[in-house]
Protein backbone atom coordinates (compact mmCIF):
# COMPACT_ATOMS: atom_id res chain seq x y z
CA UNK A 1 0.00 0.00 0.00
CA UNK A 2 1.08 3.57 -0.69
CA UNK A 3 2.70 5.32 2.23
CA UNK A 4 2.43 8.97 3.19
CA UNK A 5 5.53 11.14 3.56
CA UNK A 6 4.70 14.20 5.60
CA UNK A 7 6.42 17.57 5.04
CA UNK A 8 6.07 21.11 6.41
CA UNK A 9 4.98 24.39 4.83
CA UNK A 10 7.02 26.14 2.13
CA UNK A 11 8.88 23.14 0.68
CA UNK A 12 10.80 24.93 -2.07
CA UNK A 13 11.97 23.60 -5.41
CA UNK A 14 15.50 24.02 -3.99
CA UNK A 15 14.48 21.56 -1.25
CA UNK A 16 13.10 19.20 -3.87
CA UNK A 17 16.14 19.33 -6.15
CA UNK A 18 19.18 21.50 -5.42
CA UNK A 19 20.58 23.93 -8.00
CA UNK A 20 23.79 21.96 -8.26
CA UNK A 21 22.03 18.99 -9.87
CA UNK A 22 20.09 20.91 -12.51
CA UNK A 23 22.59 20.32 -15.30
CA UNK A 24 22.12 16.58 -14.81
CA UNK A 25 18.82 16.37 -16.63
CA UNK A 26 18.41 12.58 -16.64
CA UNK A 27 15.35 11.82 -14.45
CA UNK A 28 17.12 8.81 -12.88
CA UNK A 29 20.05 11.04 -11.84
CA UNK A 30 17.70 13.70 -10.45
CA UNK A 31 15.76 11.03 -8.52
CA UNK A 32 18.90 10.15 -6.52
CA UNK A 33 18.93 13.65 -5.01
CA UNK A 34 15.24 14.39 -4.57
CA UNK A 35 14.39 16.10 -1.26
CA UNK A 36 17.99 15.50 -0.21
CA UNK A 37 18.18 18.69 1.86
CA UNK A 38 15.21 17.50 3.93
CA UNK A 39 16.25 13.83 4.21
CA UNK A 40 19.41 12.57 2.47
CA UNK A 41 17.99 9.00 2.32
CA UNK A 42 14.55 9.91 1.01
CA UNK A 43 15.24 8.45 -2.44
CA UNK A 44 16.10 5.02 -1.01
CA UNK A 45 13.27 4.92 1.52
CA UNK A 46 10.40 5.97 -0.76
CA UNK A 47 8.51 3.27 -2.70
CA UNK A 48 6.75 3.60 -6.05
CA UNK A 49 3.24 4.89 -5.53
CA UNK A 50 3.96 6.74 -2.28
CA UNK A 51 2.36 10.12 -1.67
CA UNK A 52 3.77 13.34 -0.26
CA UNK A 53 1.48 15.12 2.20
CA UNK A 54 2.56 18.67 2.88
CA UNK A 55 1.51 22.03 4.27
CA UNK A 56 1.02 25.25 2.38
CA UNK A 57 2.99 26.72 -0.53
CA UNK A 58 4.46 23.41 -1.72
CA UNK A 59 6.95 23.90 -4.57
CA UNK A 60 7.64 27.57 -3.96
CA UNK A 61 10.62 29.24 -5.59
CA UNK A 62 12.29 28.40 -8.85
CA UNK A 63 10.45 27.43 -12.04
CA UNK A 64 12.75 24.40 -12.46
CA UNK A 65 10.68 21.61 -13.96
CA UNK A 66 13.40 19.28 -12.67
CA UNK A 67 11.43 19.32 -9.37
CA UNK A 68 8.31 17.43 -10.55
CA UNK A 69 10.49 15.36 -12.91
CA UNK A 70 12.61 14.19 -9.95
CA UNK A 71 9.59 13.47 -7.74
CA UNK A 72 7.93 11.43 -10.46
CA UNK A 73 11.16 9.60 -11.29
CA UNK A 74 11.66 8.51 -7.67
CA UNK A 75 8.18 7.01 -7.70
CA UNK A 76 6.05 9.61 -5.91
CA UNK A 77 2.56 9.18 -7.37
CA UNK A 78 0.88 12.30 -6.01
CA UNK A 79 1.30 15.31 -3.78
CA UNK A 80 -1.40 16.39 -1.38
CA UNK A 81 -0.81 19.85 0.03
CA UNK A 82 -2.71 22.61 1.77
CA UNK A 83 -1.69 24.85 -1.14
CA UNK A 84 0.77 24.88 -4.03
CA UNK A 85 3.03 27.51 -5.51
CA UNK A 86 1.73 28.50 -8.93
CA UNK A 87 4.56 27.49 -11.28
CA UNK A 88 5.18 24.14 -9.59
CA UNK A 89 1.47 23.28 -9.78
CA UNK A 90 1.35 23.73 -13.52
CA UNK A 91 4.73 22.01 -14.07
CA UNK A 92 3.57 19.00 -12.06
CA UNK A 93 0.44 18.54 -14.17
CA UNK A 94 2.45 18.95 -17.37
CA UNK A 95 4.77 16.20 -16.11
CA UNK A 96 1.84 13.93 -15.22
CA UNK A 97 2.27 14.21 -11.44
CA UNK A 98 -1.03 14.48 -9.56
CA UNK A 99 -1.35 17.53 -7.30
CA UNK A 100 -4.25 17.63 -4.87
CA UNK A 101 -5.20 20.56 -2.68
CA UNK A 102 -6.56 19.57 0.72
CA UNK A 103 -6.89 22.07 3.54
CA UNK A 104 -6.91 19.51 6.35
CA UNK A 105 -5.01 16.40 5.28
CA UNK A 106 -1.55 17.50 6.46
CA UNK A 107 -2.42 17.41 10.16
CA UNK A 108 -4.15 14.04 9.85
CA UNK A 109 -1.08 12.12 8.69
CA UNK A 110 2.19 10.87 10.10
CA UNK A 111 5.01 9.72 7.83
CA UNK A 112 4.52 6.01 7.19
CA UNK A 113 0.72 6.00 7.39
CA UNK A 114 -1.01 4.02 4.66
CA UNK A 115 -2.77 6.40 2.30
CA UNK A 116 -5.49 6.04 -0.33
CA UNK A 117 -6.45 8.70 -2.86
CA UNK A 118 -9.49 9.22 -4.99
CA UNK A 119 -8.31 11.92 -7.33
CA UNK A 120 -11.51 12.36 -9.33
CA UNK A 121 -13.76 12.35 -6.30
CA UNK A 122 -11.37 14.50 -4.28
CA UNK A 123 -10.75 12.33 -1.26
CA UNK A 124 -7.67 11.50 0.81
CA UNK A 125 -7.97 8.59 3.23
CA UNK A 126 -5.69 7.74 6.13
CA UNK A 127 -6.01 3.94 6.37
CA UNK A 128 -4.52 3.87 9.88
CA UNK A 129 -6.90 6.38 11.44
CA UNK A 130 -9.74 5.57 9.00
CA UNK A 131 -10.30 9.28 8.51
CA UNK A 132 -11.11 10.82 5.15
CA UNK A 133 -10.11 14.33 4.10
CA UNK A 134 -11.69 16.36 1.37
CA UNK A 135 -9.56 17.52 -1.53
CA UNK A 136 -10.45 19.69 -4.49
CA UNK A 137 -11.29 17.26 -7.31
CA UNK A 138 -9.27 17.65 -10.49
CA UNK A 139 -11.18 18.67 -13.62
CA UNK A 140 -11.54 16.23 -16.50
CA UNK A 141 -8.97 17.90 -18.78
CA UNK A 142 -6.34 17.70 -16.03
CA UNK A 143 -7.23 14.04 -15.43
CA UNK A 144 -6.75 13.38 -19.15
CA UNK A 145 -3.26 14.86 -19.00
CA UNK A 146 -2.40 12.89 -15.84
CA UNK A 147 -3.76 9.63 -17.26
CA UNK A 148 -1.67 10.09 -20.39
CA UNK A 149 1.43 10.51 -18.21
CA UNK A 150 1.95 14.21 -18.89
CA UNK A 151 1.08 16.83 -21.46
CA UNK A 152 3.61 15.68 -24.08
CA UNK A 153 2.20 12.15 -24.10
CA UNK A 154 -1.29 13.60 -24.13
CA UNK A 155 -0.47 15.69 -27.23
CA UNK A 156 1.15 12.71 -28.94
CA UNK A 157 -1.92 10.55 -28.25
CA UNK A 158 -4.22 13.21 -29.66
CA UNK A 159 -2.05 13.54 -32.76
CA UNK A 160 -2.27 9.81 -33.40
CA UNK A 161 -6.07 9.84 -33.22
Amino acid at each position, binding site marked *: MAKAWVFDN*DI*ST*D*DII*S*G*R*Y*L*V*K*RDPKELAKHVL*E*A*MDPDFHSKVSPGDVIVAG*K*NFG*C*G*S*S*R*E*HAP*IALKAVGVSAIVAE*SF*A*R*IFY*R*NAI*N*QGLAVLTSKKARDGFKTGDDIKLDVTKGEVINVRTKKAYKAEPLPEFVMNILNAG*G*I*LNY*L*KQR*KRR
Partner: protein
Amino acid sequence: MQMTIAEKILARAAGHKSVSPGEIVEADIDVAMVNDITGPITVEALEEIGIKKVWDPSKVVIILDHQAPPTLIEAAQEHALLRKFAAKNKVQNLFDVNEGVCHEVLPEQGFALPGELIVGADSHTCTYGAFGCFATGIGSTDMAAVFATGKLWFRVPESISVKINGSLKRRVAPKDVILRVIGDIGADGATYRAAEFFGTGIGKISIGGRMTMCNMGVEMGAKAAIVPADNLTKQYLARRAKWSYKEVYSDKGATYVDECEYDLPSLEPQVAVPHNVDNVRHVREVAGIKVDQAFLGSCTNGRMEDLVEAANILKGKKVARRVRMLVAPASREVYMEALAGGVLQKLVDAGAMISAPSCAACMGGHVGILAPGEVCISSSNRNFKGRMGSPEAKVYLASPATVAASALKGEITDPRDV
Protein backbone atom coordinates in the same frame (compact mmCIF):
# COMPACT_ATOMS: atom_id res chain seq x y z
CA MET B 1 -15.33 47.87 -17.22
CA GLN B 2 -12.55 49.27 -15.00
CA MET B 3 -9.42 47.18 -15.09
CA THR B 4 -6.06 46.91 -13.34
CA ILE B 5 -2.81 47.00 -15.35
CA ALA B 6 -2.57 43.19 -15.26
CA GLU B 7 -6.14 42.77 -16.47
CA LYS B 8 -5.69 45.31 -19.28
CA ILE B 9 -2.54 43.65 -20.59
CA LEU B 10 -4.08 40.17 -20.51
CA ALA B 11 -7.26 41.45 -22.18
CA ARG B 12 -5.26 43.06 -24.99
CA ALA B 13 -3.06 39.97 -25.46
CA ALA B 14 -6.11 37.68 -25.50
CA GLY B 15 -7.97 39.91 -27.95
CA HIS B 16 -10.79 40.61 -25.49
CA LYS B 17 -12.39 43.96 -24.65
CA SER B 18 -12.13 43.12 -20.97
CA VAL B 19 -11.25 40.25 -18.65
CA SER B 20 -12.10 39.45 -15.03
CA PRO B 21 -10.09 37.67 -12.34
CA GLY B 22 -10.59 33.91 -12.42
CA GLU B 23 -11.26 33.85 -16.15
CA ILE B 24 -9.04 31.57 -18.25
CA VAL B 25 -7.74 33.23 -21.40
CA GLU B 26 -5.44 32.21 -24.22
CA ALA B 27 -3.08 35.08 -24.90
CA ASP B 28 -0.46 36.02 -27.49
CA ILE B 29 3.05 36.20 -26.09
CA ASP B 30 5.24 39.22 -26.94
CA VAL B 31 8.58 37.85 -25.71
CA ALA B 32 9.56 34.34 -24.54
CA MET B 33 12.83 33.71 -22.71
CA VAL B 34 14.67 30.56 -21.62
CA ASN B 35 18.03 30.16 -19.90
CA ASP B 36 20.66 27.42 -19.79
CA ILE B 37 18.90 25.55 -16.97
CA THR B 38 15.35 25.57 -18.31
CA GLY B 39 15.93 25.85 -22.07
CA PRO B 40 17.25 22.32 -22.71
CA ILE B 41 14.02 20.76 -21.34
CA THR B 42 12.02 23.02 -23.68
CA VAL B 43 14.14 21.97 -26.66
CA GLU B 44 13.70 18.29 -25.75
CA ALA B 45 9.93 18.73 -25.39
CA LEU B 46 9.70 20.36 -28.83
CA GLU B 47 11.62 17.48 -30.36
CA GLU B 48 9.41 14.95 -28.61
CA ILE B 49 6.22 16.38 -30.09
CA GLY B 50 7.82 16.92 -33.48
CA ILE B 51 7.82 20.73 -33.64
CA LYS B 52 10.47 21.72 -36.18
CA LYS B 53 10.54 25.50 -35.78
CA VAL B 54 9.67 28.25 -33.29
CA TRP B 55 6.65 30.44 -34.00
CA ASP B 56 8.59 33.69 -34.29
CA PRO B 57 12.41 33.67 -33.87
CA SER B 58 12.49 37.45 -33.28
CA LYS B 59 10.46 37.03 -30.07
CA VAL B 60 12.51 34.19 -28.63
CA VAL B 61 15.39 35.07 -26.30
CA ILE B 62 17.94 32.52 -25.07
CA ILE B 63 20.38 33.53 -22.33
CA LEU B 64 23.22 31.35 -21.01
CA ASP B 65 23.67 32.64 -17.47
CA HIS B 66 23.35 30.10 -14.66
CA GLN B 67 26.46 28.07 -15.45
CA ALA B 68 28.40 30.86 -17.14
CA PRO B 69 31.13 30.14 -18.05
CA PRO B 70 30.54 26.41 -17.57
CA THR B 71 32.35 24.61 -14.76
CA LEU B 72 31.01 21.17 -15.70
CA ILE B 73 30.96 19.10 -18.89
CA GLU B 74 27.20 18.66 -18.54
CA ALA B 75 26.71 22.44 -18.45
CA ALA B 76 28.94 22.96 -21.48
CA GLN B 77 26.82 20.37 -23.31
CA GLU B 78 23.60 22.23 -22.42
CA HIS B 79 25.12 25.44 -23.80
CA ALA B 80 26.13 23.65 -27.01
CA LEU B 81 22.61 22.24 -27.34
CA LEU B 82 21.04 25.70 -26.99
CA ARG B 83 23.46 27.30 -29.47
CA LYS B 84 22.60 24.59 -31.99
CA PHE B 85 18.87 25.06 -31.39
CA ALA B 86 19.21 28.84 -31.86
CA ALA B 87 21.13 28.42 -35.11
CA LYS B 88 18.66 25.88 -36.48
CA ASN B 89 15.67 28.06 -35.58
CA LYS B 90 17.30 31.32 -36.71
CA VAL B 91 17.00 32.77 -33.21
CA GLN B 92 19.27 35.83 -33.33
CA ASN B 93 18.73 36.72 -29.68
CA LEU B 94 21.05 34.22 -28.06
CA PHE B 95 23.11 35.91 -25.37
CA ASP B 96 26.12 33.77 -24.62
CA VAL B 97 28.00 33.08 -21.38
CA ASN B 98 29.76 36.45 -21.47
CA GLU B 99 26.62 38.63 -21.39
CA GLY B 100 25.13 38.28 -17.92
CA VAL B 101 22.02 37.34 -15.99
CA CYS B 102 18.85 36.92 -18.05
CA HIS B 103 16.79 39.41 -16.05
CA GLU B 104 19.38 42.16 -16.48
CA VAL B 105 20.26 41.40 -20.11
CA LEU B 106 16.70 41.17 -21.43
CA PRO B 107 15.76 44.72 -20.29
CA GLU B 108 19.17 46.12 -21.32
CA GLN B 109 18.55 44.73 -24.79
CA GLY B 110 15.19 46.51 -24.94
CA PHE B 111 12.84 43.50 -24.88
CA ALA B 112 11.00 44.47 -21.67
CA LEU B 113 8.53 47.18 -22.68
CA PRO B 114 5.39 48.72 -21.15
CA GLY B 115 2.17 46.90 -21.95
CA GLU B 116 3.83 43.67 -23.12
CA LEU B 117 3.05 40.13 -22.06
CA ILE B 118 6.34 38.35 -21.39
CA VAL B 119 6.93 34.79 -20.25
CA GLY B 120 10.24 33.37 -19.12
CA ALA B 121 11.21 29.89 -18.01
CA ASP B 122 12.60 31.33 -14.81
CA SER B 123 10.62 32.33 -11.74
CA HIS B 124 12.23 35.77 -11.51
CA THR B 125 10.81 36.76 -14.90
CA CYS B 126 8.50 39.01 -12.86
CA THR B 127 11.48 41.45 -12.75
CA TYR B 128 10.36 42.99 -16.08
CA GLY B 129 7.20 44.29 -14.44
CA ALA B 130 9.45 47.21 -13.44
CA PHE B 131 8.81 48.47 -17.00
CA GLY B 132 5.02 48.36 -16.75
CA CYS B 133 4.55 45.01 -18.45
CA PHE B 134 3.01 41.73 -17.33
CA ALA B 135 5.87 39.26 -17.00
CA THR B 136 5.66 35.88 -15.37
CA GLY B 137 7.66 32.72 -14.85
CA ILE B 138 6.56 29.44 -16.40
CA GLY B 139 7.97 25.92 -16.68
CA SER B 140 9.93 24.47 -19.56
CA THR B 141 7.10 22.37 -21.01
CA ASP B 142 4.69 25.33 -20.99
CA MET B 143 7.48 27.20 -22.78
CA ALA B 144 7.56 24.50 -25.44
CA ALA B 145 3.89 25.30 -26.11
CA VAL B 146 4.80 28.99 -26.42
CA PHE B 147 7.75 28.31 -28.73
CA ALA B 148 5.44 26.19 -30.91
CA THR B 149 2.36 28.43 -31.02
CA GLY B 150 3.19 31.86 -29.57
CA LYS B 151 0.30 31.43 -27.18
CA LEU B 152 -0.31 30.29 -23.63
CA TRP B 153 -3.34 29.98 -21.36
CA PHE B 154 -3.53 32.11 -18.23
CA ARG B 155 -5.89 32.42 -15.31
CA VAL B 156 -6.48 36.16 -14.97
CA PRO B 157 -5.12 37.00 -11.50
CA GLU B 158 -6.72 39.16 -8.87
CA SER B 159 -4.65 42.29 -8.30
CA ILE B 160 -3.33 43.79 -5.08
CA SER B 161 -2.13 47.35 -4.62
CA VAL B 162 1.08 48.22 -2.77
CA LYS B 163 1.30 51.94 -2.16
CA ILE B 164 4.73 53.44 -1.52
CA ASN B 165 5.00 56.91 0.03
CA GLY B 166 7.93 59.29 0.52
CA SER B 167 11.66 58.81 0.00
CA LEU B 168 14.23 56.36 1.31
CA LYS B 169 16.68 57.54 3.96
CA ARG B 170 20.44 57.21 3.50
CA ARG B 171 21.61 53.59 3.19
CA VAL B 172 18.08 52.24 3.11
CA ALA B 173 17.37 50.61 -0.25
CA PRO B 174 14.55 49.34 -2.47
CA LYS B 175 15.67 45.85 -1.33
CA ASP B 176 14.70 46.79 2.21
CA VAL B 177 11.26 47.90 0.97
CA ILE B 178 10.51 44.65 -0.81
CA LEU B 179 11.86 42.52 2.05
CA ARG B 180 9.51 44.38 4.41
CA VAL B 181 6.57 43.85 2.02
CA ILE B 182 7.33 40.11 1.74
CA GLY B 183 7.71 39.85 5.50
CA ASP B 184 4.25 41.35 5.91
CA ILE B 185 2.42 39.61 3.06
CA GLY B 186 4.13 36.23 3.56
CA ALA B 187 5.76 33.72 1.22
CA ASP B 188 2.41 32.71 -0.28
CA GLY B 189 0.36 35.81 0.50
CA ALA B 190 0.22 36.95 -3.12
CA THR B 191 -0.03 33.53 -4.82
CA TYR B 192 -2.06 33.70 -8.05
CA ARG B 193 -2.19 37.49 -7.71
CA ALA B 194 -0.60 40.43 -9.50
CA ALA B 195 1.00 43.05 -7.26
CA GLU B 196 0.89 46.61 -8.62
CA PHE B 197 3.02 49.34 -7.04
CA PHE B 198 1.67 52.86 -6.72
CA GLY B 199 2.20 56.03 -4.69
CA THR B 200 4.47 59.05 -4.79
CA GLY B 201 7.38 56.99 -3.48
CA ILE B 202 7.62 54.56 -6.37
CA GLY B 203 8.32 57.38 -8.82
CA LYS B 204 11.40 58.31 -6.79
CA ILE B 205 12.82 54.82 -6.92
CA SER B 206 15.29 54.22 -9.76
CA ILE B 207 14.65 51.74 -12.57
CA GLY B 208 17.20 49.42 -10.96
CA GLY B 209 15.40 49.69 -7.62
CA ARG B 210 12.05 48.94 -9.26
CA MET B 211 13.63 45.86 -10.87
CA THR B 212 14.82 44.72 -7.42
CA MET B 213 11.31 45.11 -6.04
CA CYS B 214 9.49 43.40 -8.92
CA ASN B 215 12.16 40.68 -9.02
CA MET B 216 11.20 39.54 -5.54
CA GLY B 217 7.45 39.59 -6.22
CA VAL B 218 7.61 35.82 -6.73
CA GLU B 219 8.96 35.43 -3.19
CA MET B 220 5.47 36.31 -1.97
CA GLY B 221 3.95 34.08 -4.64
CA ALA B 222 2.94 36.87 -7.03
CA LYS B 223 2.28 35.91 -10.62
CA ALA B 224 3.41 39.36 -11.72
CA ALA B 225 4.67 42.53 -10.04
CA ILE B 226 4.13 45.76 -11.93
CA VAL B 227 5.27 49.38 -11.67
CA PRO B 228 3.38 51.75 -13.98
CA ALA B 229 5.64 53.29 -16.65
CA ASP B 230 6.72 56.91 -16.10
CA ASN B 231 9.38 59.31 -17.37
CA LEU B 232 12.19 57.29 -15.80
CA THR B 233 10.95 54.23 -17.70
CA LYS B 234 10.84 56.15 -20.97
CA GLN B 235 14.33 57.57 -20.41
CA TYR B 236 15.73 54.09 -19.78
CA LEU B 237 14.04 52.72 -22.89
CA ALA B 238 14.80 55.67 -25.18
CA ARG B 239 17.98 54.17 -26.62
CA ARG B 240 17.06 50.54 -26.02
CA ALA B 241 13.47 49.68 -26.97
CA LYS B 242 13.42 46.87 -29.55
CA TRP B 243 10.13 48.02 -30.99
CA SER B 244 7.42 50.60 -30.29
CA TYR B 245 5.25 50.25 -27.21
CA LYS B 246 2.14 51.62 -25.59
CA GLU B 247 1.98 52.28 -21.84
CA VAL B 248 -0.85 50.73 -19.88
CA TYR B 249 -2.28 52.25 -16.71
CA SER B 250 -4.96 51.07 -14.32
CA ASP B 251 -8.45 52.56 -14.45
CA LYS B 252 -9.88 54.62 -11.64
CA GLY B 253 -12.15 52.27 -9.73
CA ALA B 254 -10.34 49.10 -10.81
CA THR B 255 -10.63 46.29 -8.27
CA TYR B 256 -7.76 45.51 -5.94
CA VAL B 257 -8.60 42.65 -3.59
CA ASP B 258 -6.04 43.80 -1.08
CA GLU B 259 -4.23 47.07 -0.42
CA CYS B 260 -1.25 47.93 1.71
CA GLU B 261 0.78 51.07 2.24
CA TYR B 262 4.40 51.79 3.18
CA ASP B 263 6.07 54.99 4.34
CA LEU B 264 9.67 54.96 3.19
CA PRO B 265 11.13 57.60 5.55
CA SER B 266 10.51 55.38 8.58
CA LEU B 267 11.88 52.20 6.98
CA GLU B 268 15.02 50.61 8.45
CA PRO B 269 17.44 48.17 6.76
CA GLN B 270 15.86 44.70 6.63
CA VAL B 271 17.19 41.16 6.44
CA ALA B 272 15.55 37.83 5.61
CA VAL B 273 16.93 35.23 8.01
CA PRO B 274 17.23 31.48 7.22
CA HIS B 275 15.53 29.55 5.70
CA ASN B 276 12.55 31.51 4.32
CA VAL B 277 12.37 34.79 2.44
CA ASP B 278 9.41 35.99 4.54
CA ASN B 279 11.39 35.55 7.75
CA VAL B 280 12.18 39.28 7.81
CA ARG B 281 13.77 41.25 10.69
CA HIS B 282 15.45 44.62 11.18
CA VAL B 283 19.17 44.25 10.46
CA ARG B 284 19.90 45.59 13.95
CA GLU B 285 17.98 42.67 15.49
CA VAL B 286 20.47 40.16 14.06
CA ALA B 287 23.58 42.38 14.00
CA GLY B 288 26.72 40.65 15.23
CA ILE B 289 26.21 37.26 13.53
CA LYS B 290 29.59 36.29 12.03
CA VAL B 291 29.70 35.88 8.25
CA ASP B 292 32.02 33.72 6.13
CA GLN B 293 30.94 34.96 2.71
CA ALA B 294 29.41 38.16 1.38
CA PHE B 295 27.81 37.93 -2.04
CA LEU B 296 26.96 41.00 -4.08
CA GLY B 297 25.24 40.20 -7.35
CA SER B 298 22.28 38.34 -8.94
CA CYS B 299 19.24 39.51 -10.89
CA THR B 300 18.03 41.14 -7.66
CA ASN B 301 20.99 43.37 -6.84
CA GLY B 302 23.91 43.12 -9.26
CA ARG B 303 23.37 46.43 -11.03
CA MET B 304 25.60 49.50 -11.29
CA GLU B 305 23.90 51.38 -8.45
CA ASP B 306 24.31 48.32 -6.21
CA LEU B 307 28.03 48.08 -6.94
CA VAL B 308 28.43 51.84 -6.41
CA GLU B 309 26.66 51.68 -3.03
CA ALA B 310 28.96 48.85 -1.90
CA ALA B 311 32.07 50.60 -3.24
CA ASN B 312 31.17 53.77 -1.33
CA ILE B 313 31.09 51.81 1.89
CA LEU B 314 34.27 49.81 1.15
CA LYS B 315 36.51 52.39 -0.56
CA GLY B 316 39.86 52.80 1.13
CA LYS B 317 38.99 50.05 3.63
CA LYS B 318 39.46 46.30 3.80
CA VAL B 319 36.95 43.48 3.98
CA ALA B 320 37.30 41.66 7.33
CA ARG B 321 40.09 39.06 7.28
CA ARG B 322 38.11 35.83 7.27
CA VAL B 323 35.34 37.03 4.98
CA ARG B 324 35.27 36.06 1.30
CA MET B 325 33.52 38.80 -0.64
CA LEU B 326 32.31 37.81 -4.10
CA VAL B 327 30.95 40.37 -6.55
CA ALA B 328 29.20 39.31 -9.76
CA PRO B 329 28.10 42.25 -11.94
CA ALA B 330 24.68 41.36 -13.39
CA SER B 331 25.74 41.93 -16.98
CA ARG B 332 28.65 42.79 -19.26
CA GLU B 333 27.23 46.31 -19.55
CA VAL B 334 27.26 46.71 -15.77
CA TYR B 335 30.75 45.19 -15.64
CA MET B 336 32.12 47.65 -18.21
CA GLU B 337 30.50 50.64 -16.55
CA ALA B 338 31.85 49.60 -13.15
CA LEU B 339 35.26 49.02 -14.71
CA ALA B 340 35.36 52.40 -16.44
CA GLY B 341 34.12 54.28 -13.38
CA GLY B 342 36.73 52.74 -11.06
CA VAL B 343 34.09 50.96 -8.99
CA LEU B 344 35.63 47.52 -9.50
CA GLN B 345 39.02 48.95 -8.52
CA LYS B 346 37.61 50.08 -5.17
CA LEU B 347 35.97 46.72 -4.53
CA VAL B 348 39.08 44.70 -5.45
CA ASP B 349 41.26 47.05 -3.42
CA ALA B 350 39.04 46.28 -0.44
CA GLY B 351 39.63 42.55 -0.98
CA ALA B 352 36.62 41.51 -3.04
CA MET B 353 36.75 38.98 -5.91
CA ILE B 354 34.98 39.85 -9.15
CA SER B 355 33.38 36.98 -11.05
CA ALA B 356 32.07 36.85 -14.60
CA PRO B 357 28.59 38.34 -15.09
CA SER B 358 26.32 35.40 -14.21
CA CYS B 359 23.94 34.10 -11.56
CA ALA B 360 27.11 33.12 -9.66
CA ALA B 361 26.54 32.20 -6.00
CA CYS B 362 22.77 32.71 -6.09
CA MET B 363 21.91 29.32 -7.58
CA GLY B 364 24.35 27.19 -5.61
CA GLY B 365 25.55 25.28 -8.64
CA HIS B 366 28.36 27.48 -9.88
CA VAL B 367 30.78 29.70 -7.92
CA GLY B 368 30.73 30.74 -4.26
CA ILE B 369 29.47 27.47 -2.72
CA LEU B 370 29.10 27.32 1.08
CA ALA B 371 30.44 24.61 3.43
CA PRO B 372 28.33 23.15 6.27
CA GLY B 373 27.97 25.63 9.12
CA GLU B 374 28.98 28.65 7.04
CA VAL B 375 27.04 31.91 6.91
CA CYS B 376 26.56 34.12 3.85
CA ILE B 377 25.14 37.61 3.73
CA SER B 378 23.77 37.98 0.23
CA SER B 379 22.14 40.56 -2.00
CA SER B 380 20.29 37.78 -3.88
CA ASN B 381 16.69 36.62 -3.59
CA ARG B 382 16.49 33.21 -1.86
CA ASN B 383 17.75 31.86 1.43
CA PHE B 384 16.22 28.37 1.17
CA LYS B 385 18.05 25.48 2.80
CA GLY B 386 20.85 24.38 0.49
CA ARG B 387 20.32 27.26 -1.92
CA MET B 388 24.05 28.19 -1.96
CA GLY B 389 25.58 24.79 -1.33
CA SER B 390 25.47 22.81 1.90
CA PRO B 391 21.99 22.41 3.47
CA GLU B 392 23.73 23.13 6.77
CA ALA B 393 24.85 26.58 5.59
CA LYS B 394 22.84 29.73 6.32
CA VAL B 395 21.98 32.54 3.92
CA TYR B 396 20.81 35.98 5.07
CA LEU B 397 19.30 38.24 2.39
CA ALA B 398 19.86 41.98 2.53
CA SER B 399 20.60 45.11 0.52
CA PRO B 400 23.95 45.77 -1.19
CA ALA B 401 24.76 48.33 1.54
CA THR B 402 24.12 45.78 4.29
CA VAL B 403 26.21 43.17 2.42
CA ALA B 404 29.12 45.63 2.10
CA ALA B 405 28.89 46.82 5.72
CA SER B 406 28.75 43.21 6.94
CA ALA B 407 31.76 42.24 4.79
CA LEU B 408 33.66 45.16 6.27
CA LYS B 409 32.91 44.22 9.87
CA GLY B 410 32.91 40.42 9.44
CA GLU B 411 29.47 40.24 11.00
CA ILE B 412 25.97 41.28 10.06
CA THR B 413 25.99 45.07 10.32
CA ASP B 414 23.46 47.83 9.78
CA PRO B 415 24.96 49.95 6.97
CA ARG B 416 24.07 53.12 8.88
CA ASP B 417 26.53 52.03 11.56
CA VAL B 418 29.67 52.12 9.42
